[in-house]
């Protein structure tokens, strides 16, 4: 037990850098971060105040990296962080935080609290205090290649199914293709029509692409649980496959944290830059649209709104692209009251939806999204993350709201101009 705590505290020490120190030095306990966090606003539970979720990390910083903290520790005047405290903090760090980063946007002194939560998870996991469901997912990711246990034969079956529907083949392991598409297990299992949609769009736009049979998983459980070694290994698999197939770019699909993992954390996890580019599927679709290669006919008449997946939008930087794409196929697109980089999290990312223990809290937090929807009365919600989609559906069902949740990519595919609709005669 003590060995685990030591590993955890060591991980905390390693994670503390100048930004972390500047953040902790600047916090004035104003509490504004709470009002930006959907877990607080929908429960009014002060323990869910974002900065409070970091308290053990803060104490380690104070006691090890400030002169008066070290002084006080030398005189036995400080309280060391205990294993019991880390146990208490597990639900704060994992169940009530998706690392959405909304708190980071409002803190008046500029603290990036989500950045610190990500770092704190490294210590929590090392100390053995990560949720069991996440541990299971991560183990599966390492041994099977997918956190949900999706193996190659299953993907192949889904691909075959799509090919049958499409009437043309889907490229697998094509060397020299421009783009290598990753898929999240969530999509393969719950929204496999995504594969057909992409295939149709890419055929229409004449994109040179492929899927790798050796590295098709986009989800990175390592960054959700906070074990950088595992996160790095999962990224290395993708890097190896991209190198083997000599692709120019890797496409991150409709999954929030997958994008964060491969686009922003990846090179830092493996300690070197990639020799390929990474694009989110929305970035690629927008590029195709700008180049005139994505032509659509017809428009959705339903009143649509867009839910920004936090890791893609606020934390990822892909904000305008989905809007341009949606405006192409929607007659009545209305923004949520607080939108773009200030949109509210759905409440399920960062491992929260994988964690059964967090179910009640997650559904309570959904109320925040519900309030946004109640203000604009859309007919349907469009988003670009499979996890957001499932959780939004869950929340809508829980609160008796009748509203479909659509994938942006699949919606675009529905309105493609030309004969590339399903059931082609080829």
């Amino acid at each position, binding site marked *: 037990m003590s060995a685990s705590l030591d590993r955890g505290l060591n991980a905390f020490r390693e994670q503390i850098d100048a*930004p972390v120190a500047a953040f902790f030095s600047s916090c004035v306990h104003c509490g504004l971060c709470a009002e930006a966090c959907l877990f607080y606003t929908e429960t009014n539970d002060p323990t869910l105040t974002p900065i409070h979720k970091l308290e053990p990390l803060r104490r380690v910083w104070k006691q090890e990296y400030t002169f008066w903290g070290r002084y006080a520790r030398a005189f036995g005047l400080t309280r060391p962080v205990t294993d019991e405290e880390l146990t208490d903090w597990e639900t704060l760090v994992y169940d009530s935080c998706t690392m959405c980063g909304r708190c980071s946007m409002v803190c008046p002194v500029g603290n990036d609290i989500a950045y610190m939560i990500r770092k704190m998870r490294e210590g929590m996991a090392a100390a053995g205090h990560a949720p069991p469901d996440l541990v299971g997912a991560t183990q599966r990711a390492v041994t099977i290649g997918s956190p949900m246990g999706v193996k190659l034969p299953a993907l192949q079956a889904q691909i075959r199914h799509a090919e049958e529907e499409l009437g043309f083949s889907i490229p697998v392991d094509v060397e020299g293709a421009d783009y290598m598409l990753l898929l999240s297990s969530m999509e393969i299992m719950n929204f496999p029509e995504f594969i057909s949609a992409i295939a149709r769009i890419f055929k229409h736009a004449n994109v040179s692409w492929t899927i790798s049979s050796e590295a098709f998983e986009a989800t990175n459980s390592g960054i959700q649980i906070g074990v950088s070694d595992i996160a790095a290994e999962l990224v290395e698999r993708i890097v190896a496959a991209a190198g083997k197939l000599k692709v120019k770019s890797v496409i991150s699909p409709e999954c929030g944290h997958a994008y964060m993992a491969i686009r922003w954390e990846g090179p830092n996890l493996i300690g*070197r830059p990639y020799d390929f580019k990474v694009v989110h599927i929305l970035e690629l679709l927008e590029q195709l649209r700008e180049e005139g290669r994505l032509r659509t006919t017809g428009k959705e008449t339903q009143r649509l709104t867009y839910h920004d997946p936090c890791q893609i939008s606020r934390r990822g930087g892909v904000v305008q692209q989905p809007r341009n794409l949606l405006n192409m196929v929607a007659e009545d697109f209305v923004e949520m009251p607080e939108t773009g980089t200030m949109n509210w999290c759905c409440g399920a990312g960062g491992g929260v939806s994988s964690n059964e223990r967090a179910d009640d809290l997650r559904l309570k937090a959904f109320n925040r999204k519900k309030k946004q929807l109640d203000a604009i009365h859309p007919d349907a919600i469009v988003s670009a993350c499979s996890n957001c989609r499932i959780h939004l559906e869950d929340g809508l069902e829980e609160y008796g709201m009748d509203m479909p949740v659509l994938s942006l990519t699949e919606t675009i595919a529905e309105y493609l101009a030309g004969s590339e609709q399903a059931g082609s005669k080829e």
Partner: protein
Amino acid sequence: MSEAELLLWVRGPALQIATAIFLLGVVVRLAEILMLGRKKDLAEARGSAVAGGLRTIFSRFVPDRGTLQRSTFNVVAGYIFHIGFFVVLFLFTPHILLFQDVLNVSWPSLPTPMVDATTIVTIIALLAVLAHRLQNPVMRFLSGFQDYLVWLVTILPLVTGYLAFHRIGAVPPPTLIAIHILSVELLMVIFPFTKLMHAFTFFMARYYNGAISGYRGVNS
């Protein structure tokens, strides 16, 4: 100790000690932060970290609409007492003369009646934020000894300064001034050990925040 001796000590040795602790403390705290360093970001940049960082230092002064709506009192009262404090500290003639003595620079002052009124407004704002801190569930939960100590050492110079200027109190004016200066020295000595450091570190925190986001092409 006579009143003259007290005043001399307070303006002499005590001030030197307080200033030394303040300056040394602030420098050490800032160095401790910077020495930790930050790993270079190896991901391909979408935007400029430096531009983002500098931008956020200033843009974070303006709260987003949602925060302003949800936490109106916190934001407004916070601005009032901060601005008030700076006005009183930097735009009051006797203070400017003191700075001129020490730093050889001077700048225009505000008419004393205005500073006087600002002092009252600032004191009221500080009383209000204390009440709010005690009554708001989140703030009450987050607050500890340090938060209340810092509040005290912040309001004391304002109160003692007002009393000294208006010669209110059962002690002779020189002693009132000595008490005022002591209260400032208390603030200076406490400063590097508390959240008051935010006055210097908030530039860094906002910069890092903006840099991290700016690198990804997001204005934070």
